[in-house]
């Protein structure tokens, strides 16, 4: 029955127009997610690359990002909202804090996981530190880095719902409203939308990954293929 109600809610034309309609809420939700992931990436990617490349501060980085992970998001968003005196900035900062750890972990682990022999060869052939980072370490770190971005995106999409607590029209709104008036159709309908959005974004990022991750690395992720040429070595 709940799903029928949810379906009815989703298909109700009244929910598709106006300033509190589904499209508007999806748009707002997306905007917050995009802002949060981009903001987090702007902080976490350079930091992760630097620490991974130099090997300095790895312990601090891992400890720090675990501490960030332990923060309760709802509490943080509410706290920042109160501290920032209302407005969207508090919510955005809360989501950025949430998105930083997975991206940081992806960037750092991506660089750290590059085969030591490959890095040694790059150095031994005469690459400077910067050349090594941009031409060798970063391209090889992309699979894990993109993975970190996907993780962060999923978490942010799910958590952006809490922004509704402080009055922002994200997809958390129907969840809260539905719960308050025991309108489970609205509640489940909102949840379905959040889940759908998460899946769509993940697929989009997977495609982006296919575009940016070098072919040679994608080949190695698959089961090893027999070389077709005659073996000469």
């Amino acid at each position, binding site marked *: 029955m709940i799903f029928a109600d949810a379906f009815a809610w989703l298909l109700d034309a009244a929910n598709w127009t106006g300033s509190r309609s589904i499209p508007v809420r999806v748009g707002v939700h997306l905007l917050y997610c995009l802002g949060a992931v981009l903001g987090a990436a702007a902080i976490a990617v350079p930091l992760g690359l630097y620490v991974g490349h130099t090997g300095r501060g790895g312990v601090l980085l891992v400890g720090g990002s675990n501490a960030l992970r332990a923060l309760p998001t709802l509490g943080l968003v509410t706290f920042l909202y109160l501290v920032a005196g209302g407005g969207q900035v508090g919510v955005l900062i809360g989501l950025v804090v949430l998105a930083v750890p997975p991206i940081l972990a992806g960037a750092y682990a991506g660089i750290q996981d590059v085969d030591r022999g*490959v890095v040694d060869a*790059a150095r031994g*052939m005469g690459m400077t530190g910067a050349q090594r980072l941009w031409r060798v370490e970063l391209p090889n770190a992309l699979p894990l880095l993109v993975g970190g971005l996907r993780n962060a995106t999923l978490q942010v999409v799910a958590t952006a719902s809490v922004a509704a607590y402080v009055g922002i029209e994200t997809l958390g709104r129907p969840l809260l409203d539905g719960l308050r008036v025991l309108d489970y159709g609205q509640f489940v309908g909102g949840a379905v939308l959040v889940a759908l959005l998460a899946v769509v974004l993940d697929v989009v990022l997977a495609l982006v990954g296919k575009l940016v991750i070098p072919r*040679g*690395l994608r080949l190695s992720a698959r089961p090893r293929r027999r070389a077709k040429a005659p073996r*000469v*070595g």
Partner: protein
Amino acid sequence: MIEFRGVTKRFDDGTIAVNGLDLVVEAGTITVFVGPSGCGKTTSLRMVNRMIDPTSGTVLVDGRDVLTVDPPKLRLGIGYVIQQAGLFPHRTVLDNVATVPLLSGWSKGRARTRAAELLELVGLPAELGRRYPVQLSGGQQQRVGVARALAADPPVLLMDEPFSAVDPVVREGLQDELLRLQAELDKTIVFVTHDIDEAVRIGEKVAVFREGGVLAQYAPPAELLARPADDFVAGFVGKDRGYRSLSFVDAAGVEVRPVETADEPGGDGRWRLVVDADRRPQGWRAPDGSTVPGGSLYESGGPVRGALDAALSSPSGLGVVVDAEGRLAGVVEARQVLDVIESRRG
């Protein structure tokens, strides 16, 4: 020429990796650093291109103290090959080989043309250039590693256990290939290995290191096997050193005599050699009429070790001698080979 003058490397934890190394690597030779693990051979190699800097002492490349040269610039002029090749997985084989020329400022087109030449030089088909490292066998990857190190035509080549991760048969092929390349290119090569057989096989001079980073002996391989400086070197070169030293004795004076082949009539009750239409040995026909596989073949003109091995491994006791094309030249007897070895002693 590479020169180590009183070079010592002490790591932060206090271990001494290299202790007072004095050694000259002659230009245009293959010099092998060999020793057990922890003997400082790799550390010594890595001090040449400043992957590690010495605690004291001087390393000179062509008379210039390497510490006076900026590391990336120094390394662009020194080829570097490591174990498991260390190819860049995200680049094609061709672009891997073109790395150093591109870093040195060549145009993309010129660097790729050069890379294609190098692939050919190391015996890889051109179409392999479009592949990625993960699509190659271990031996192919090592060849690409060598091609990549040679791409900018550096006078010095550093090779750190380059062939130790491939199987023995492939390794032998790669060693032969290196010797062939060296005959053509005349580089100054420093080659690190823990395998004494590899060392005496490819080295023109061999430096044996012992634990604690001390040079135990520095000599041509024949001398190393014949006159080890002390018990450590004698133990390291191994029990079979008397036999292995025969690799450096030429076989002049060993009598090669004809042999009956199985396609000739008669000969019952004797061992006869089976040959194909091109007179390539195929095995032996035993006196009871059965056919058994042959032993190792000795190519005429090679060192006496091959002749003795051919005789000892042959089911008939006769070592089969072939010419450069692999065609039957005759047979030798172990007793006769030993006589020649004995006579050399006197």
